[in-house]
């Protein structure tokens, strides 16, 4: 398991939007309850993928990816505190240099972070008749609501 210093360093780097690729590459991938390392590893994979194929505005894409990553780390910490067992989402490149988080399991949750509009939009299905669908400014997260939603969509 990573020690506290490592975890704190990872979080600090992400929060400052100054991820060091060498740090990501050399740090062993370890599953942690709060997703910090998982988030970094997924970001690294996505970054490699984007470098291979993506041809649009990489700077804008990177801002969207950091927004998604920061969200994941923040909500991961809250979920860890609640001891809820939730799968880590897929991180997907999206149109307009946005980045989407996708939990496939039914019911479903999708969140798209768009650095261009500085907004995130989400869609979740809690059961056959109940849906949540809204758009908000990036950073204005109601984490309690989102943690509740995540625990429900995975139930």
């Amino acid at each position: 398991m990573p020690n506290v210093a490592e975890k704190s360093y990872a979080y600090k780097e992400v929060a400052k939007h100054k991820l060091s690729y060498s740090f990501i590459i050399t740090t062993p991938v370890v599953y942690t309850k709060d997703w910090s390392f998982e988030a970094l590893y997924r970001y690294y994979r996505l970054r490699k993928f984007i470098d291979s194929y993506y041809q649009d505005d990489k700077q804008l894409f990177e801002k969207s990816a950091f927004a998604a990553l920061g969200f994941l780390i923040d909500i991961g910490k809250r979920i860890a505190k609640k001891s809820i067992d939730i799968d880590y989402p897929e991180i997907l490149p999206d149109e307009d240099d946005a980045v989407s988080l996708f939990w496939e399991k039914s019911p479903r949750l999708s969140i798209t972070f768009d650095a261009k509009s500085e907004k995130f939009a989400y869609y979740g299905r809690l059961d056959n008749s109940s849906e949540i669908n809204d758009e908000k400014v990036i950073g204005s997260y109601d984490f309690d609501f989102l943690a509740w939603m995540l625990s429900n969509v995975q139930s």
Partner: protein
Amino acid sequence: MISTSWRGCSPMCNPETWFIEDIPDDSVLLYRVFRDWMPELKVRPNVFREAGGSMSTNWDRYSTASETREQVRSEQLPDVFVIALNTEYVRKETALSIKHSPDHSLQNRAHTDVFGLGASRIEKVRLRNYLFDMYESWVWAAQPN
């Protein structure tokens, strides 16, 4: 003389006679997806995208999945996949609008627009999930060798 291999348009056919037809519910729409949309090479909601105001598809009456895949620049071919959309599902579950729109300049009689996905980000995230739910698991209608 117009030379094309598209189904429904032999070298003798005349694109000037192509007209816009009603697409019945039992039709299939063939939709191209690109490798750089899919880190794990899986169909996900993010693959449903508009280009120029609509999702561009081909009606299976006039095109096959392989032909649809090949309607890109040759250097793109290794990165192009095709999935099949059920017309009835698209209409009933998403209320997206399907319009046959033959492309005379590209000699593509099968071309069909799907409108309505890009209304707003909120709508888009919802509609894409509806489209993703079309099949329990997605298979490629055509893919690179």
